[in-house]
Structures are given as C-alpha cells and as structure tokens.
C-alpha cells in the first residue's frame, strides 16, 4: 500500500482575470520509508505540490490519498488533525515560536493532540534527545544556533510519531557543515525509524542524500529517478 498517492493533481490559482496553472495533472506515489528530494526552479510548482502533500492546501482537481484517506473530502479542522498526526513540517526558516523554550516548542503538536502534560514533557524530552539536544530544553530559539534551532524543529516534527516529514529547504539557511549534520539526522530518522522523508531543495549535494529525486518544471514532473542502493 502506497503511503502517498497523487492522481492527476491540478492546482489552479486565479488572480483577477489571470489563471495560473501551478500544477497540471501530477500523478505520483510514494511508499513508506522512502527518502525523496523534490527539485525544480522557483515557480515550477514544487512548493504548491508540497503544500498539497502537507495538507495545507487542497488540489483543484485530482485526488490525493494519504494512507488511503481522501484529503479532498476533509474540512479545515480535519486537515489540521491530519497535519497534527501524520505530517511533521521542517521549514527553511525553522519557524519556531519565539519567546518559547525548546521543549515547549516540541510539546506544541502534542498540545493540540490533547496529551496530558506529563506525557508531553516525557515525549518532548525523548525527541530532543534523539536529535542530540538534551540539556538545551530550556533554551529559547534566540539562544540557539541555526543548526540547533533546526534540530528543535525536527524534534517537533518527530514528536507525534508522524509517518512523514516534509522538509522545505531545511538547510537553506545553514552552512555546509551544519547542513551535512542535519542531513545525517534525516538519514538516521529515515533508516532507523522508517520515517518517510520528503524534502525540497535546489542544491544537488543536498538532493544527493536522497534515494529518489523528483524534478518539477512548469507545474509538471519532468523526471523521477530512483537511485540504486549504495
């Protein structure tokens, strides 16, 4: 069973009288445990595609099945529930809550899932430990380096045991050494915890960490290469 199944997805934006086809008839399946890089120049439709995969947006036409749930049938709050349980987001700009400690940032998804405080704290501590940040739980984002902030964001993505991590240029703001560390972390999560990682990047050396590279251009997939096992 495919984890993600996109069938003929089309997304059309209307701005005044101009109609923009951000995505045209995109079909794709991603199985559990894959490590996928999505590439393409800006305006190629990769961000729109990621927004749909992340259940932040719905396709205009076509079907998106996530674990066999048709996303098109869900309302706003049901989508929020899916995002909460199934998807962990990692952003280029980290997107941590300012003035909020690392552990509270990591607890946030569980807060919206309604877990009791004690359980939240335990799981958040475990998640921070798994990204190598134990001892930093009470630091605020402005007291952490970029790499550390991104680790907190990854811990936040992990903490609800989501099967998918969607990472939008996760290393875009980081130097090459820290980038490599973050990518190693993704690989570890992918291999050890069987988490499906889908990341958007325009850097080839980052894409090289993945086992499958999907390239977008003008709202279509122009190539979908499976790398051989190294």
């Amino acid at each position: 069973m495919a984890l993600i199944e996109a069938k003929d997805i089309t997304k059309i934006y209307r701005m005044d009288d101009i109609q923009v086809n951000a995505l045209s008839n995109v079909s794709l399946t991603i199985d559990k445990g894959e490590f996928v890089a999505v590439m393409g120049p800006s305006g190629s439709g990769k961000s729109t595609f990621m927004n749909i995969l992340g259940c932040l947006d719905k396709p205009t036409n076509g079907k998106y099945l996530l674990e066999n749930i048709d996303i098109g049938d869900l309302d706003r709050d049901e989508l929020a529930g899916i995002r909460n349980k199934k998807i962990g987001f990692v952003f280029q700009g980290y997107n941590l809550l300012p003035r909020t400690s690392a552990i509270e940032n990591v607890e946030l998804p569980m807060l919206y899932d309604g877990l009791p405080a004690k359980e939240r704290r335990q799981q958040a501590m475990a998640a921070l430990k798994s990204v190598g940040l134990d001892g930093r739980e009470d630091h605020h984002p402005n007291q952490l380096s970029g790499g550390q902030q991104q680790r907190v964001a990854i811990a936040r993505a992990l903490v609800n045991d989501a099967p998918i991590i969607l990472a939008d240029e996760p290393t875009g703001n980081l130097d090459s050494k820290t980038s490599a560390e973050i990518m190693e972390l993704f690989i570890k999560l992918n291999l050890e915890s069987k988490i499906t990682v889908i990341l958007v990047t325009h850097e080839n050396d980052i894409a090289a960490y993945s086992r499958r590279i999907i390239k977008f251009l003008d709202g279509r997939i122009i190539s979908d290469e499976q790398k051989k096992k190294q």
Partner: protein
Amino acid sequence: MINIPSTLRISFRALKVNKMRSALTMLGIIIGVGAVIAMLAVGTGASKRIAEQISSMGSNLLIILPGATTSGGVRMGGGTQPTLTMADAEAIQKESLFVSDVAPILNGVAQVIYGHQNWSTGVVGTTPSMLTVRDWPVAAGRSFSDQDVKSATKVCLLGQTVVDNLFGDMSPVGQVIRIKKVPFTVIGVLSMKGQSAQGQDQDDTIYVPVTTAQKKLFGTTFPGMVRIIMVKAKSTQDLPAAEKQINDLLKQRHRIGPKQENDFTVRNLTQIMQTAEQSTKVMALLLGAIASVSLIVGGIGIMNIMLVTVTERTREIGIRMAIGAKTWDIRLQFIIEALTLSLIGGVAGIIVGISGSKILSMLAGWSTIVSPFSILIAFGFSGLVGIFFGFYPAYKASLLDPIEALRYE
C-alpha cells in the same frame, strides 16, 4: 482541545514582552472597573444610611402632630395648640384595621438628679406600646405596664446616654432618681439606639408612663392632653390606608367640617424616607451605568490591541495551524489573551475602586460601602468585555490561510 494552563503562560509571556502596551490597554479596564465599584459604593453607602435611619426611627411609622389652629381669624403655627388626646389614641387603636400599635406622647425637658449627678434630658410620657412602635427593646430590667399607665406609677425607663451621665458604670435598675424633684424608680434601661436622621442622640431620653407625665411632671391644659401620637401600621403596604383612616377618624372626632382646616397633621415619615432610599438607589445605578461606559471604552481598547497582536503574530498563527491547531484552538488562544488582559485589569480595577471609595469617604465624608455584589458585577462585566471584544480579533486569526500566514514576514 486547547490546553488552558499553557495558553495562559503563552498569554502572560506575550503581555510581558509588550509591558507598556499591555499596561495602557489594561488602564481602560482598570478605570472602568474602578469607577463602577466606586460609584456603586457611594450609592450603596447613601441608601444604607437612609435605611439605617428608617429602621432606627421604627418601621411603618405614622406621626400625628397637632396642626395649625385658628383662633379669631388669626392662624397659629403648626403644633402651637395641643389638640390631641389620649382618647384620640385609643380610638385610633380601636377603629383602624391597618394599625398595629398606637403610642400617645407627652414630652418635655426636665432636670434629672441622682445622688450628686444631675442631667437635663427629654422626658417622654407614653404607653408600653411605644417600645413596639419604635422597635426599641429594653436592654435591662422591664418595661412599664398598662397598669402603671392606669395608676400613674412613678417608674421610668432610662436611655443609654442618661444612664452614662447619671450612673456611669453602675446598674441603674431599682435606683430612685428625681425628675423635676419627683422621685421615680428606675425599672429598666433602653437598648442603644444611636443617632436619628436629624443627628439627634436618641438615647438621651427617659420614658415614663404618660399619665404620670400628665399629672406629676408637665401638667395638661385639658384632661388627657398629649403632644404627639405615634402609630405603627401593620405593614408598609398598609401605610397609606392607615393614614387615610386616621385622617377621617380624627376629622370626625375633632368635628372638623369639609371646608375647615385640620387641627392635626399625619406624617408618613417611613414613606418619605423610603422614597429617598429609592431615589438614591436609582442614582447609584445611574452612576454605575455611566461608569460602565468607560468599561466598554476599555473593551474597545482591548479589541484594538488584539487586532494589532493578531497581525504581528500572523506567522506564529501559521506555525500553529501547520502543526495542527484547529479553528477553536486559535480562537480560544486569542480570546484567553484578551480575557487575561481584561481580568488582570479587572482585579487591578477592583483594588482601585475599593481604595478610591475609601479615599472618597475620607475626603468628602460620604459613607461608602463596597458590596461584594458590586465587585462580582464589575469583575464579571470586565470578563464579558474581554470575551466580547476579544472574539472578533480571535475570529479573524482563526480564518487566516496557513500558507499565507507561514509566509508572512
């Protein structure tokens, strides 16, 4: 569902970051709540004072005074000519259905002597029903009886002030005092009554049987003369009916024709006081209502700031939505923030209101009473203001598009 303690923490933190802004926003609510509490305190204090005066006077009271008389075309002033008698009092007691007790009064001022002490005080000749009419129980000893009145016994009841001046700490019951050189046995002491509405010391008095006052102390121009008759109606509702009956009865008894002027006046003091109490209550509510306008203005301030906050924190809202916050999670977060502002303002306003009314009563000498009810009302109202004016910004926040919000710089 949203987690209240952590939302509260987030709210406090957000408020702490913008200390000045939060303080100014709260100021609106503080002034509003403070004003409501202080105004209600002034109003409650005033009506409580009047209520106390009513009850110290005796409730459901009618006072019959001798009225203006005309002798040979010359109109004399009110009360100049005694026209009331014991028989009038007895008739009222017998005939009027709406009257529970009647007390005739013949009073005067007399020098009172006990041992080496002497004191000038008001001596009131009356009947035992006087104590019921004025709701004035005996604190020690006993009251005089109808038999005492019938046989004009030389016994008396002392007010607290008289006891203090003549006896000090000694118990006066059983002692003999001289009123206008006539020896009287003290049989009881009246309980403490305090000041009257006019500021008179009501405890500076001595009660003696009315017949004794007539025969031994003050004398009468005609037999059975009394100066005043006090009447207690059965209930407040019965007061107007009792007043009318007494009017009719006395007109008939005094043989006053339809075109003649009454030689007596019936005064309904309780009604006058109750009207005064009512109007102070209305005034208090009016003051409170005006003060609550400032509370609403404070609420608009909160809404304004919350709208700014929502815009400033668009990105945060986007993050929360991406992570799984549902519509009501976002709404509740901002409503709770608005509520935090208004309730902290409310608590501070209560303190301001209480100390404000204390200062008012010290500076202006008004009696103010901060009732728990007014605190509850003001606090509850500030909470409602928070929810009401916090809802629109929260609603706006919850409708943001997560993708747009995440992109917001």
